[in-house]
């Protein structure tokens, strides 16, 4: 246990080491520690850095190179060997490792476009994700839940690939840019509750992709570091997600299982938790409960929500509940008064990202890799900010643009950055609706049928017509176009095909020629698609 706690800052240290290596290609840890606090204004980060300083001083006194290798083995699950050699190489301090690294760098530079001098970054990202895996949410029982890879993950070889791995939604960065204020608020809320030994609720809302869950996780991680450093009392952390439950009452079962690893039915678990939170107990730790997708825990009597918000108000509960949902007015909309009042007024809403923030997020992800043109990044962030402000969407578009660029590079073998044209293509792929394209590529009879539908709507002045009315128009159009007129069955098949594509809205096919037809796309779209050929 002791070694583990020491090992934590050590591994942190190594991260920074590589940050430094990236800055000036040289292992200069002391220099880095001096520069680090400038990068992050956050209180926790400062605390961490001070701790690192202490550790470094310790290290200087008695360097223990064997300690950290041992730690690595302890933390990383069995498949250490499966990871590519780069990590292990770098663990060895010596000429060999240095040599190997240089050799690889030489190898890479051959393949890389000339602008990129930061080739070790590839190794760095790998290290980063790995260190996080070690630092899982429940360090006390170190059984990893994610199935291990059978094959080593392919190493990103050149800049675009590195950019793509970094832009992946799953690789949550260490620090979340543009959410410093929210981080601070949540951190201080939870920290104060933990220090006071009281309970409370907080409601966090915001549209999808604004970093709610990531921020809370970050808070918990920092708090845990603080608890490990004995700055605040230690605490339990339990996370449940409404989406991952078959039934709202399963929440009790999951909470109990994560707290005490005890299995019970929903009712029994509820009573056990009730007992746990209402009775005083010596040496009781604070429990931080994160409830994601709160709106799915809604039941008719709302007793699950009621209990979740009622337990923190008990005198001996020492429970902090953080709830996350999408809509800001959820408590007012679906909760009955006694539940809403227990939830309290500690609320926080995550605003959608503006374009500058999105740009900053991408920049921080890329971390000074020169893969994107400035204008291209600005275009992505402006487009996404105008539509939803969803960071996930933004990252996806960037990745798609990087992919397109990669294909282009592979085709022409001219190295270049991701430019405006790639971004425009990616945006078109992601945002344009497929209806117009599907009308454009529909068969002649299908296009004719759509035209007949619009003609009939024009004649009737309504937005609805029966099939037999449209059929008359269709046959007239066939005659005008000089096509051989088709049978009712064929036209019905055409109509039902369009209905299956959701271009038309149809009634049940049993009604035959009496079924009514509506358009599922606007008439202008149909006309535009039909006219352009």
């Amino acid at each position, binding site marked *: 246990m002791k070694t583990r706690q020491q090992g934590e800052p050590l591994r942190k240290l190594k991260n920074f080491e590589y940050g430094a290596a990236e800055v000036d290609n040289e292992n200069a840890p002391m220099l880095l520690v001096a520069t680090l606090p400038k990068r992050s204004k956050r209180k926790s980060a400062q605390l961490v850095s001070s701790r690192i300083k202490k550790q470094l001083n310790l290290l200087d006194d008695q360097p223990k190179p064997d300690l950290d290798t041992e730690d690595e083995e302890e933390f990383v699950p069995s498949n250490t060997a499966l990871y590519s050699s780069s990590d292990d190489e770098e663990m060895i301090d010596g000429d060999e490792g240095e040599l190997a690294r240089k050799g690889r760098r030489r190898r890479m530079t051959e393949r890389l476009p000339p602008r990129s001098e930061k080739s070790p970054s590839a190794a760095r990202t790998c290290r980063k994700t790995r260190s996080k895996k070690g630092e899982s949410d429940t360090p006390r029982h170190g059984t990893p839940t994610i199935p291990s890879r059978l094959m080593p993950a392919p190493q990103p070889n050149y800049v675009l690939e590195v950019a793509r791995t970094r832009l992946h939604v799953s690789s949550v960065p260490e620090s979340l840019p543009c959410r410093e204020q929210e981080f601070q608020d949540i951190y201080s809320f939870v920290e104060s509750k933990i220090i006071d030994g009281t309970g409370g609720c907080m409601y966090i809302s915001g549209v999808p992709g604004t970093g709610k869950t990531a921020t809370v996780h970050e808070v918990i991680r920092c708090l845990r570091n603080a608890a490990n450093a004995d700055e605040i009392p230690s605490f339990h952390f339990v996370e449940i997600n409404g989406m991952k439950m078959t039934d709202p009452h399963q929440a009790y079962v999951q909470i109990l299982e994560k707290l005490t690893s005890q299995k019970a039915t929903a009712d029994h678990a509820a009573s056990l938790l009730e007992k746990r939170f209402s009775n005083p107990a010596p040496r009781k730790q604070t429990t931080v409960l994160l409830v994601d997708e709160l709106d799915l825990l809604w039941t008719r009597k709302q007793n699950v929500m009621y209990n979740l918000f009622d337990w923190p108000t008990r005198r001996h509960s020492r429970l902090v509940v953080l709830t996350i949902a999408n809509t800001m007015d959820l408590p007012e909309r679906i909760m009955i008064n006694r539940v809403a009042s227990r939830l309290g007024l500690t609320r926080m809403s995550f605003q959608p990202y503006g374009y500058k923030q999105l740009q900053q997020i991408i920049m921080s992800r890329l971390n000074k890799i020169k893969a994107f043109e400035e204008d291209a990044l600005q275009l992505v962030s402006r487009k996404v900010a105008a539509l939803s402000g969803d960071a996930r969407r933004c990252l996806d578009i960037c990745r798609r643009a990087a992919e397109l660029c990669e294909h282009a590079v592979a085709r022409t073998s001219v190295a270049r950055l991701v430019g405006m044209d790639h971004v425009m293509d990616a945006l078109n792929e992601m945002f344009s609706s497929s209806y117009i394209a599907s009308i454009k590529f529909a068969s002649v009879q299908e296009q004719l049928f759509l035209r007949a539908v619009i003609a009939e709507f024009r004649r009737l002045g309504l937005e609805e017509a029966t099939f037999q009315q449209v059929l008359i128009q269709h046959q007239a159009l066939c005659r005008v176009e000089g096509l051989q007129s088709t049978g009712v069955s064929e036209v019905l098949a055409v109509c*039902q095909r369009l209905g299956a594509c959701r271009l038309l809205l*149809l009634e*049940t*096919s049993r009604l035959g020629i009496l079924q009514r037809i509506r358009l599922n796309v606007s008439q202008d779209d149909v006309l535009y698609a039909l006219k352009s050929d």
Partner: protein
Amino acid sequence: MSSSWLQQQRHPGYEEESLRRVAEQLPCREPQAGMLLFLMGEPKQYSLPCIFIYGHRASGKSHVVNILLKELETPHATVSGAECISATLLFQQVLLSFFGEDAVAALPRSPSLSDFVRIYKQHCSRATAEQTRYIVLEKAELLRDMDANLLSTLVRLQELVEDNVSVLLLSELVWDTFRPNTGCLEPLLLHFPDYTKAELHQILSRDRHPSYSADFYASYIHILLGVFYAVCRDLRELRHLAALNFTKFCEPVAEGKATESDTHKLWRHIEPHLKKAMQTVYLREVSSLEWEKMQEVEMEASPLRGLSAHSHVELPFYSKFLLIAAYLASYNPARTDKRFFVKHHGKIKKTNFLKKNEKTSNHLLGPKPFPLDRMLAIFYSVVDSRVAPTASIFSQISSLVTLQLLTQVSHVDQLDSPKYKCAVSMDFICAISRTVNFDIIKYLYDFL
């Protein structure tokens, strides 16, 4: 002659003998059977995933498919949509006929489609088929009422179970009314056309009586079709009528009044008889058994009153008046009530009296709903004596509803001012009103 389609195309993999037997049993369906056999291909070859066979009633859909599958000894499961009220029964029958009892036992209590596919796959991997398996679904139109995904799954069952299985859907409806709104794999459509008159003649002549010559029976069928073909092309019905009336046709020959070649005489004898049969037996007014009895005892045909003549119902006195009141309320417009039922309604404007030139009479449009109050008001006015609105009156109304002489239009829960419709015919109500000496024609707006 019937094996022409056999000789034209070789069907390797099937025995010559069984093909000949098939051809014998399928008169006038050579093109269809040939096409089916062509689609089935050789026993080992993969068939189409789904073939949709449609045609009118008694056009030989099930017959052709069953004879083909039985004579060629292909593994097949014949399931009727009418029998399988739940998908469970369908799954059980299919598994039972393909894999036997233990496959059925493996099905859970209320199996889903995925259970069925899983167990099918398990068993077919154990016993791989040398031949295409066929699932024949008769009355497939009833499948649409079952699970929404059942039909679209069966259409592509071959893909799902990864087995050489083919589904044949038989229905009287066209495929257009089957297609799910979300779309599905389009099966091959195969139409069975109606039999022509000549074909019907050929098929019906096959089951001749052994004691008479074939020409004699053929001439009988000719006469029969001459009478019935205009109203009925259903092979089963015609065959039934032919069997029923043949003894009558043979009578003159048996009695020695005519010879077998005396066609005109025989026609004169049977023709009025067949015309009578069209009104009675064909509409099931008289059951086939009674008809045969009548022929035996030489009774004058149809002195008996048929089923539809039994329209006299004994009712209590007030129920009769209630029914009359309901009929009047249903078929008279409400604005004429004052003119018909108020005794001293002051001065009457003549213009109100005159029947407006209405295009259709109320009797053609069917009964209209009326509230209970109006019916009771008419009831009190048509009954001469004073009637107290007791519970028995109201219970008689509700029992008229249960007897289906009235129908309740409003919801059953509605207690205040429920609405009714009268559901009896003109003849019925005239007979009722005659028994209580009430001239209903005088009070009906249509007959003014």
